[in-house]
């Protein structure tokens, strides 16, 4: 695989261009705002949680222009919303630590059984330390929303 595709996997590019669940969620009962001041990535994650189950989830990029957020953070948020719908709080937290561990190199997704599925396309991001926070921002924001913190920053 070329170095550029290690980071910009086709699936990541596709999601960044057509992000899923990129909208305000009217039924949300949890939300949090995440911001990476270093690169300007800025998102809101909306959650509708009932009986400790994520019934619905969406995200919205914030920014002065049309581009708003980088491809990695957009794709990561998009794919996160796809995988978390219907998951219990426990499952969400387990996925968070697997995803976070994969990106920070503390979790080997190839040898340890896990539920990462399609999210494994983000494994290449760990080779680009400057971009790890782009991929983890939506996840940190989601966790903050779940725990009802007001704002989260990856700085």
């Amino acid at each position: 695989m070329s170095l550029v595709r290690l980071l910009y996997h086709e699936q990541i590019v596709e999601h960044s261009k057509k992000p899923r669940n990129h909208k305000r969620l009217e039924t949300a009962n949890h939300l949090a705002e995440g911001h990476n001041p270093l690169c300007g990535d800025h998102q809101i994650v909306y959650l509708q949680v009932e009986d400790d189950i994520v019934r619905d989830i969406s995200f919205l990029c914030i920014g002065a222009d049309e581009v708003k957020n980088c491809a990695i953070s957009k794709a990561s948020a998009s794919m996160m919303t796809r995988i978390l719908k219907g998951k219990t709080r426990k499952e969400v937290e387990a996925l968070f630590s697997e995803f976070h561990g994969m990106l920070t190199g503390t979790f080997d997704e190839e040898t340890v059984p896990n539920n990462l599925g399609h999210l494994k396309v983000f494994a290449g991001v760990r080779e680009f330390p400057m971009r790890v926070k782009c991929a983890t921002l939506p996840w940190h924001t989601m966790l903050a929303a779940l725990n009802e913190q007001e704002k989260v920053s990856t700085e």
Partner: protein
Amino acid sequence: MLSRDEEMATTLEQLIPIKPKPREGWDVERIRKDFPVLRQTVNGKPLVYLDNAASSQVPVMVIERGAQYIQQEHSNIHRGVHYLSMKATTAYEGAREKIKRFINARESRECIFVRGATEGINLVMYGYGRKVVGAGDEIIISAMEHHSNIVPWQMLCEEKNAKLRVIPMNDAGELLMDEYDALLNERTKLVAVAHVSNALGTINPIKEIVERAHKYGVPVLIDGAQAAPHMPVDVQDLDCDFYALSGHKMFAPTGSGVVYGKAALLEQMNPFQGGGDMIKSVTFEKTIYADLPNKLEAGTPAIASQIGLGAAVDYLSIIGREKAAAYEHELLVYATERLAAIEGVRIIGTAREKLGVLSFVLDDIHPHDIGTILDLEGIAIRAGHHCAQPVMQRLGLSATARASFAFYNTRQEVDALVQGIEKVIEVLG
């Protein structure tokens, strides 16, 4: 062996200005040999360094001067009567003399050594601003300032209950001088403006700005961090009251820099920091401060870095500042033409008077993704808000990609940048 007097004489001889050697055209390949860092590959591709506005590279001559100081001359300055202290002091003060000539200050004591332009601006804020600015007073800055020429003045305004006024700019990135006129009044205590914008490359009309402020008796500070490395600067001709520059943006090591101030203003100023080297006498009852420049230079400075800055100034005179500037301008024009021709590229900052900086955005693609893919091609650019968030807000952008040039960059490197951008479009477009 030379006597000490002879040593001093030879050192002083080195201070005599080096006449720029006449040079036909611009032999960029020869210039590149002076910069060892450029001889490397990144991700298997030759390094293309286009992030000079963030920090420039250091030529061998400067590296060797710093190394020579550390190996043979190091000691503390202005202290000992011993041989090494004298050597170190002579070299350090020699660097000040070189800087004085470089910006055409009247006297070398008007050149205060600082860590960089940021510290220079803070020094003026603490030493001058805090002394003269009071409640209800106003400080004027511009819409295109780097955070380093915004935040110190905000801090001062907050402390003194003063007001920060901002000269607006047009969409091209040019200051609206009529609006500036309207801002000036008897409450204005200081004007602080960039000579060249780091995010847009605009060269501001400093002489005009200074002249209009002086009509109200208002002193002007110029942030020269982007200008000093790339264009001749004459502080007497500009008639500015303060001028701050960073060594690391002008081919010297980090930790070096100068803030120039007119002697009369520097003399009025409170010390920036207290400590050794800035005093005449200390008792527990009273301290008498040293004369300029020492009053404003407490503690042991970055001696090797500042000596390096002196050597960088020598280097610039040897290669010829005006020739270097002319070559950089040609390169900017070429790069602007080539980038503007790429579909989807929009150049940000289109002032008529521009220097060395080419900011751009690419349809639907975030500057950080541009920066990462270019890096994989060995090309170093800056992506983000360039420490000028208000500029981004004014232009309705969250970030830009920025290529910035120095006289060691080549047309081939511009071509590589163009190919790199085409690659970005191929991957993400």
